[in-house]
């Protein structure tokens, strides 16, 4: 009997606690194999280096992983998640992607966009890959059932 392969998920998230919570959720609930990336740069590299069943993206992140020599990780990327979706489109990667974010607004000044508006824009720009956005509140676990419901609706999980 061939054992079904575990679902492979790429998780791109710079907040360590949130990354841990999400990873735990996918492993415990779906027995998934989770590949973690902490920045735009390492996220895109991981994206190009392997195949996944699902991409889970933070929206705002740093350009690079932070290190001893650069604590900030380079420029902040307020729309880093969108940048990864663009890279997926550019390289014809059709894996489904979901955004899980703590923020209700992104960018600054004229660039300021609400999560609601951003969700609409992403659905228009990436109709074949982007499936939706989930608002994450670390202390409250409602996000787990909303995320599971979305993945079920998109037939990514049974």
């Amino acid at each position, binding site marked *: 009997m061939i054992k079904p392969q575990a679902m492979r998920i790429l998780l791109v998230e710079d*907040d360590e*606690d949130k990354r841990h919570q999400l990873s735990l959720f996918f492993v415990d609930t779906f027995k998934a194999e989770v590949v973690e990336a902490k920045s735009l*740069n390492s996220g*895109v*590299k991981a994206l190009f280096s392997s195949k996944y069943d699902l991409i889970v993206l933070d929206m705002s992140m740093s350009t*690079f992983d932070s*290190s*001893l020599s650069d604590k900030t990780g380079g420029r902040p990327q307020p729309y880093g998640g969108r940048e990864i979706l663009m890279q997926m489109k550019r390289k014809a990667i059709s894996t489904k992607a979901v955004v899980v974010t703590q923020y209700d607004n992104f960018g600054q000044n004229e660039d300021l966009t609400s999560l609601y508006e951003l969700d609409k824009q992403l659905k228009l720009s990436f109709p074949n890959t982007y499936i939706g956005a989930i608002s994450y509140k670390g*202390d409250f676990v409602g996000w787990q059932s909303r995320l599971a419901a979305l993945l079920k609706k998109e037939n990514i999980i049974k």
Partner: protein
Amino acid sequence: MALPIVLKIHSKYYSKEIDSYITYALEDFLDSKNIRRPSELINMYANYQRNQLVFFLREICVESTMDTYTEFNGPHDVAAERLKICRILCELDQPNKDEYQEEIKNLIRQEAISKMLVEIEQSRIHVDVVKLREWAKKDLSESFLRYLDFVRHGIKTTNKSLKDDPKAKALDSEKESLHFMTVPENEVNALFAQIVSEIRDGFASNPDFGLERFVSTRIRHGIIETRLRRPLESHNLITKREKENGPYKSNDYWLSRLGLSDQIGRRLDQAFARFSASYDQLLRNIKAEWLQVRKRTEDKGLFNFLISEGEIKILSDQLTEQSTFRELFEFVMRMLNEKLTISLNEIRNQFIKSGKKEALDLINKLQRSILTIVDLDTYSELEAEINIARTDLQSVFDQVIQWFVPSQTVGTTSYDIVVALNVAEAIVKESSDNFSSKINFKNGDASIEVTGGLPSFIDIFVNIFENVVKRSGLLIPQADIEIEAPNFEEKAGLVKIAVINELGDDIDIDTRKGDLIRRKSLLEKEDYKKAVIKETGSGLYKINRSLKDFKIVGSPIDPFLDFGIEKGKYFISIGIPYLLIDDQTSSNENSIG
């Protein structure tokens, strides 16, 4: 090459909406030429019009475009590539050479600062082993020789009273009678244990060269609190006490921004005050319970240098009658370094499992508390700031965890004084970003390179700059630095650096002058050793101590420190001795050894 150029022109003159496509076009162009980086185009220049190539390298191959190209591994990698490109542009675009050279200078300076910051971060845990060895040899050799005497006479491990040992009586009568008269039971083992304990005490807590000195100066003296508070202060989630042990200041920022009723405003303010108090208690616990040196069972601290009787026995068993003091010292150092490594591991684990977790729990508790006080619209304004602060807090704890590694060898690094001053400024700006310094050379620009003592140099100026921030009473603290470079005609002399700052209107100058006179008197009497280990105060004692690290053996000139108030301004002047090590250097570039 045309596509990235067209996209760049669109971005520059029309809209930045499609800026991401510039990076993609750059990447596709380089791919089409089978190269990975723009600097590799050097072999293909003949294929392109010069003005196109210059525009491409100058305007498109910039850090903000290249950093999202996955060929690069980090900001330093990107900066290194931009440096290569600027050097190429100096050749290709001669009329604008000055502009590229200025950019090259800034890039090199930023890289030097960045490299130095890493060295400083990795040198917080330090013991001056050279000075420890010198001191131990001077103070403990004689005791060791006495111990070896006992060993040679075969009375190392006996528990019997010497009176009962006929063999002992038969030996050299003068020495034996001396031993007989002055050596009680187990005196030999006690003597050996004493020697080992004294080396341990020197290693762990000597105020001149021991671990305690450096942990106090480079971590406990305000630095760890400043670093760990910074993410919360940036988002106005934490306030300070009005005075020592007093109540916490009101969180005026959020109270005025949210425009709440008195009752709700009061409840919110209390939530912030409770959070501030709890978080500061966490930081106090870290300093008092973790970051202390433990030599006795009753001591607190995770720098654990308790030595058991078994360990003493193992050490003594490694020695023979022919052993030298140097060998003993090396054995003890090996043991102490192992204990240090274990301690650092334990501290890192504590930060990961306990410190960081507790900090996150506190911020989550604050968030839950706020949710019960304000309505949802008001809450969402705060929520974004709390979320960013939470992410930044984790990052800052990770940075602090990296401090607890054995010190890297930085003793022989050469560095430019101006760059090192920039590093000290950068460190202070991490917590006080409105601080700035201005450097002037009193007698014409000079490049002065120092060899060795970088961490101590940084310690001195971080202390000085922090004093300007904390004690000047200025809203926008600024330090004017005056460097007096000697003309280096003499083989030995001093490089003098003065830091001057204005004082705020609220400063009582007479009281301050009195305080400074008192401190000067203590320094002159050298009556400040305990103050070096304490974490409060202006750090003048610590500055003085760090300055002594620049004493050059064989030089008649000592480092000096002077400070006071003149014409309403505070000044602190230091003199760093130099000794010329190469007579062939040019008149404006000299090494201080």
